[in-house]
């Protein structure tokens, strides 16, 4: 058993970054995730020699990640919604240049400056590309402090494996809440996958390495795009992760990710106490989206209720997955409001049982 | 006049005929050819045999098309390597 600690989500994530062998963190303070930079500033360099730098902006941070990841190191940044918007240009370049790195979004309510309260309003931005051009991030959605820690290591491993940026899409509540967390052992710095493509100085025994996203010849650019799409397809086939809860006999399915899924577990329990056969599907990877499980279950259930802390974003992917074979309803709260289990159950009863 | 004998070799296919070497040459050794290269540029040629190997043409050439040779006296090794480019700056003033 690993070391047990009571930690904030943001701190667990920062601790996990050190333990996952992260070489460098570049970031800029923004609520509700500033603890990550604070924790790393305090802890990291003494323990592993990890580089921690407070940049002048999120724009600079993400481009520092580009440089450090291009140099073959494990690099990460974290921010919250407005800051992640600022990073989108850099993320597009990173995806195009196929640089492995970890980007953490502790989602807060928007649009605009919005609120500092938790939200899931950045689902589209995280899963559909976010910046310009056709690209995908691997998106992991933690729903506990434990997963805030575990997904850092998983995220780095997936990033290195596929040479692709990985995003942890958390929210302000997961970032700020304190829970028990079991920490994994210290991993070697920089991971174990060799990176012969990195710019480390051209030695006589190899050609020069170039990190770029520029391919001016349209045929060449299409080729790059096709290669990226093939990679995303492979990720879609191999890396889907989700959790199911009491779906075996379920007549109705709740679905939610991250914080929403924690609440929905309670809804399932409350509903079952009242005799409703409800189960829960929690997508863990938002890209690749677990379409197959939704498709399979769609013919066995009477309806799916998708619950999110936004105006309805993941629900589009759920609807695409079930291909019209069952009714998919949506319940959401916005602006930093966290829905209660009772109000979700009320809505469930209203929409599915009372036929309103 | 010239105390030093120099010569240049030009990669005419890479020359873009910008003429910067022509104005940089203190001896009036070079000019643009009437002929054109595969790119369609009039390329530089030597029109006089009075090159001193001062390197000015090569230094201002944006396309690195010029190689410069200079025959010097006993201490050949002083100018035989590229690393002595700085050392021979004094040639520019003659």
């Amino acid at each position, binding site marked *: 058993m690993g070391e047990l600690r009571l930690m904030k989500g943001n701190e667990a994530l920062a601790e996990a970054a050190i333990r996952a062998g992260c070489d*460098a963190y*570049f970031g800029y303070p923004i609520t509700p995730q500033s603890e990550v930079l604070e924790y790393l500033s305090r802890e990291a360099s003494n323990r592993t020699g990890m580089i921690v*730098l407070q*940049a*002048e902006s999120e*724009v*600079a941070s993400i*481009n*520092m*990640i*580009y*440089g450090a990841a*291009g*140099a073959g*190191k494990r*690099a990460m940044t974290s921010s919250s919604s407005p800051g992640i918007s600022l990073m989108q*240009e*850099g993320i597009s370049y990173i995806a195009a240049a196929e640089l492995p790195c970890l980007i953490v979004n502790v989602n807060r309510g928007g649009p605009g400056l919005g609120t500092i309260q938790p939200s899931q309003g950045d689902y589209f931005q995280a899963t559909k590309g976010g910046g310009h051009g056709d690209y995908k991030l691997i998106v992991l959605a933690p729903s506990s402090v434990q997963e805030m820690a575990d997904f850092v290591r998983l995220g780095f491993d997936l990033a290195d494996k596929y040479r692709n940026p990985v995003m942890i899409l958390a929210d302000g509540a997961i970032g700020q809440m304190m829970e028990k967390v079991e920490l994994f052992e210290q991993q070697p710095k920089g991971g174990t996958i060799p990176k012969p493509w990195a*710019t*480390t*100085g*051209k*030695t006589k025994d190899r050609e*020069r*390495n*170039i*990190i*770029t*996203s520029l391919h001016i010849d349209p045929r060449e650019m299409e080729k790059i795009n096709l290669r990226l799409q093939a990679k995303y397809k492979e990720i879609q086939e191999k890396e889907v992760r989700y959790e199911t809860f009491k779906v075996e006999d379920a007549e109705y399915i709740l679905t939610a990710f991250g914080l929403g899924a924690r609440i929905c577990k309670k809804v399932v329990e409350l509903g079952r106490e009242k005799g409703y056969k409800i189960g829960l599907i929690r997508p863990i990877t938002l890209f690749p989206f677990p379409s197959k499980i939704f498709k399979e279950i769609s013919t066995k259930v009477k309806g799916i209720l998708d619950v999110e802390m936004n105006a309805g974003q993941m629900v589009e992917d759920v609807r695409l997955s079930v291909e019209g074979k069952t009714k998919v309803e949506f319940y959401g709260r916005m602006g930093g409001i966290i829905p209660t289990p009772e109000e979700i159950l009320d809505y469930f009863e209203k929409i599915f049982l009372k036929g309103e | 006049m010239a*105390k*030093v004998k120099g*010569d240049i070799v030009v990669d005419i296919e890479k020359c*873009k005929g*910008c*003429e*910067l070497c022509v104005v*940089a040459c203190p001896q009036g050794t070079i000019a643009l050819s009437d002929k054109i290269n595969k790119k369609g540029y009039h390329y530089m040629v030597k029109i006089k045999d009075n090159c001193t*190997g001062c390197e*000015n043409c090569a*230094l*201002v*050439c*944006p*396309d*690195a098309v010029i*190689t410069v*040779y200079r*025959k*010097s*006296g006993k*201490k050949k090794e002083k100018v*035989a390597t*590229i690393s002595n*480019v*700085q050392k*021979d700056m*004094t*040639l*520019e003033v*003659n």
Partner: protein
Amino acid sequence: MDESIVRTEEQEFLEEDICVAENLVYKKPKTLTDIDLHYCPGCGHGVVHRLLMEVVEEMDIQDKVIGVAPVGCAVFAYNYMDIDMQEAAHGRATAVATGIIRVLPDKLVFTYQGDGDLAAIGTAETLHTCNRGENILIVFINNAVYGMTSGQMAPTTLPGMVTTTSPFGRDVKTMGYPLKMTDLVAQLPGTYYVTRQAVNNASNVRKTKKAIQKSFQYLQQKKGTCFIEVVSNCPSNWKMTPVEANKFVEEKLIPFYPLGDLKVPKEELK
């Protein structure tokens, strides 16, 4: 007069073939690839590319150097320099370089940026990188115009200068004043060596090379940020011949952007 030259007079060498290896004094550096440069005839970029690669070859630091290319005409700089390079987003080269040097502190990292990249969209990154004193060389090519997008006004365009977006001349009242980034960064404690050079004639080319050599030596000694502005030309967008353009550099640009060191290492001031 150089000693060796006087001596050569005594030799009977006039009939000999001069173009032999032992007489070689100047050759394209091997660290410059054989790919034809895409730049317009007479463009200063080619000269600065070559100088950088000459220094890399002469100092034998090819395995230590990592370059960062900008967005602008020099976006393909990595095609010509036979070293490891990264292509940065517009204006972000110094942030990318920061990322590299922080994780590879023993390497010699330089950025190569134009006036739009460094002095407009990348102003914040440039100033903060210099202010942190990152141990990198910033090569700043100032030709007072946006080249790649074909001749729009740059932050460094001279007052009254005609560009496609200042067709009646740059009116400083509405378009702002030319930004002297080099003067700005010289004020920051993080910079170690700040100089303004040009490549419009052989003498200036030699000085620019000297500045590059010094900078890489300072980087080896981990002295902090070195910043070289190179006042350059843009014959195509200035609508001049290369010879006229270099004359314009001499007569108009250099008086506004005077050449010389703006910040010299303290220990070298005696």
